[in-house]
């Protein structure tokens, strides 16, 4: 037992020495979290602004000009083209020069007064979901109130929405917690798979296999440094998220680290499993990407979980990132504890045990 521990330690020390000299991996450990955090934190914003648009005003009345000015002020649309006939719209839309076009018919005033036909038409580039959603929002604006400001104070909205946990609707608040999981998935799975396959690819394994070192000792020894690296990355994202985007940790920090640790173990086990299935470092990389994509798409990190079809939801339940995203969002944003989230933690633990068992069964004790 002590001898086995000593052999494992020998591998860990060796791995740390190699890591210290591997500048690229070193840079990736720090670089990937920082880059992803800035990218996702700043760039991803679903509040659409400044869509290029055209306006066809055939009415030329006081009200129509007022309306265009009001819409322009909302900053959703930039009216870059003023057209005289609607025929030019198709060409501009197809070329991608505009995302939307507002058509004000010549009988605008009459339609407005009678209310028998919609007084306005908004032509939208439907190939972009986000544009379509923005257009629908604009279409739901009460037109009469816009044109008669005096009435604006009158009837309030039927349902008032109260946003708990994220009242300012900050995108970073939703993104940063899940990002911890995305970064850990990306780096942990790939690093472990590559580190283990490298030993085989470079021929080190052929020597090691004739020593008393067992494959399990080798694997655990090699993987241990990555647990520490994973926790360092978690800390890095938390600190940067707090400093740059003011993302809070409302729950217990200990719970958060325990959840991260279980998730790191799950990811490492997945990496070990990949390493037993592939032959080269390149294949290991491909395998890691293959695992990474469904996780990032289905976990609820990018797209709302409830919007996915049932089949995709079932698949997502089998992925560790899904459970981790729920855990971190719960702990960080809602101040939840393991009492509330024990099911997610159990699922994550179950996955780790399963992946490790599979990997152990697939270990190759010989070269054939």
């Amino acid at each position, binding site marked *: 037992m002590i*001898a086995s521990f*000593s*052999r494992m*330690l*020998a*591998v860990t*020390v*060796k791995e740390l*020495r*190699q890591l210290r*000299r*591997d500048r690229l991996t070193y840079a990736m450990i720090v670089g990937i979290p920082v880059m992803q955090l800035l990218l996702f934190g700043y760039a991803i914003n679903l509040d659409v602004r400044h869509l290029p648009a055209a306006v066809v005003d055939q009415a030329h009345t006081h009200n129509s000009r007022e309306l265009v000015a009001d819409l322009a002020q909302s900053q959703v649309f930039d009216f870059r083209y003023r057209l005289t006939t609607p025929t030019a719209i198709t060409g501009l839309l197809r070329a991608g020069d505009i995302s939307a076009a507002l058509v004000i018919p010549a009988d605008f005033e009459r339609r407005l007064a009678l209310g028998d036909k919609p007084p306005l038409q908004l032509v939208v580039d439907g190939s972009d979901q986000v544009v379509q959603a923005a257009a629908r929002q604009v279409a739901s604006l009460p037109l009469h109130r816009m044109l008669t400001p005096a009435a604006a104070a009158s009837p309030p909205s039927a349902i008032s929405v109260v946003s708990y946990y994220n009242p300012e609707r900050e995108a970073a608040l939703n993104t940063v917690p899940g990002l911890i999981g995305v970064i850990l998935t990306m780096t942990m799975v790939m690093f472990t798979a590559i580190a283990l396959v490298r030993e085989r690819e*470079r*021929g*080190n*394994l*052929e*020597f*090691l*296999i*004739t*020593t*008393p*070192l067992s494959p399990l000792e080798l694997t655990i020894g090699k993987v241990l440094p990555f647990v520490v690296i994973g926790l360092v990355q978690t800390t890095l994202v938390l600190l940067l998220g707090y400093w740059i985007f003011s993302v809070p940790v409302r729950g217990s920090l200990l719970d958060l680290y325990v959840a991260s640790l279980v998730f790191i173990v799950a990811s490492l086990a997945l990496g070990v499993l990949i390493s037993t299935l592939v032959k080269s470092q390149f294949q290991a990389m491909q395998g890691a990407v293959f695992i990474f994509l469904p996780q990032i798409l289905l976990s609820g990190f990018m797209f709302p979980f409830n919007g996915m079809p049932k089949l995709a939801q079932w698949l997502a339940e089998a992925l560790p990132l899904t459970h981790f995203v729920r855990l971190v969002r719960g702990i960080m944003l809602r101040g939840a504890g393991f009492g509330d989230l024990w099911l997610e933690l159990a699922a994550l633990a179950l996955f780790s045990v399963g992946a490790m068992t599979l990997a152990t069964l697939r270990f190759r004790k*010989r*070269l*054939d």
Partner: protein
Amino acid sequence: MPAADIAIMTHGLTRRFGTLTAVDHLDLSVRRGEVYGFLGPNGCGKSTTIRMLCGLLLPSEGSIRVLGLDVPRQAEALKRRIGYMTQKFSLYDDLSVAENLAFVAQVYGFRSVAARARIAALMDIYRLGELRRQMAGTMSGGQKQRLALAAAVLNEPELLFLDEPTSAVDPQSRREFWDSLFALADAGTTLLVSTHYMDEAERCHRLAILERGRMMVEGSPAALMNALPGRVLQVECDAPRQAQRALEGLAGVRSCAQIGASLRVLTDAEEALRRIEQALTDAGIDARIAPATPNLEDVFVAATGAPAGKAA
């Protein structure tokens, strides 16, 4: 021979990869303290055999006993008592000499004091002291080989396997390397060396020539060479290339190779001499024919039927 004197014993050892038979019913017996050589071209089954003997590969058929242990069943126990120097450098390029040896020592369960003493002794024997801080990846072929040997014997193995140990080093380093091997043999270590170099094979106590997984001949180099009396002829003439053409394909001529300005001819039997004289006269070539002392290359060609040039 008493069982205690035998280091390696196999019966009908066979290994197949799909339809290819890499090792074909090999019966080996290697004595303790012996330097035993495997000579053969690439792909003759040398590495596969060594891997099976270490317990790295499962045999398809046959039995193996190494140091009194049943392999592969007792391979784990065997691992502590053998050393293995792989064909390709298998230590870590991005670790220094000292770090590599420290790692190997710890894997073999040396305590730190004992490890330091053993590593210091090895660095002294294999002249690695000045290189201790150098990264293994930046060393020359000869230096890497000394490091690999130091790592392979760190646990003082009773039996050391060396798979083409000198394929990446210059002749000077090769000579020094063999001095180290004989020092180990003198200390009682059994060595099994695979090679495709004739000069290296000639240094072994005993030798097996392998071809396509089968053992063609076995014995001490001297005995093998003496088994070819009068069958090697030296043909001196002005036009060796013409003479070679005249002799190739002649009944009784096994091989015919140009060495400098003369021809070295290996025959099936002594009687071939007269037929060769006749053939050269018929071709109008004036030649002097004399018997030559057989060397290991002749043994190799006689055993395998292949020109040794294709083996190297």
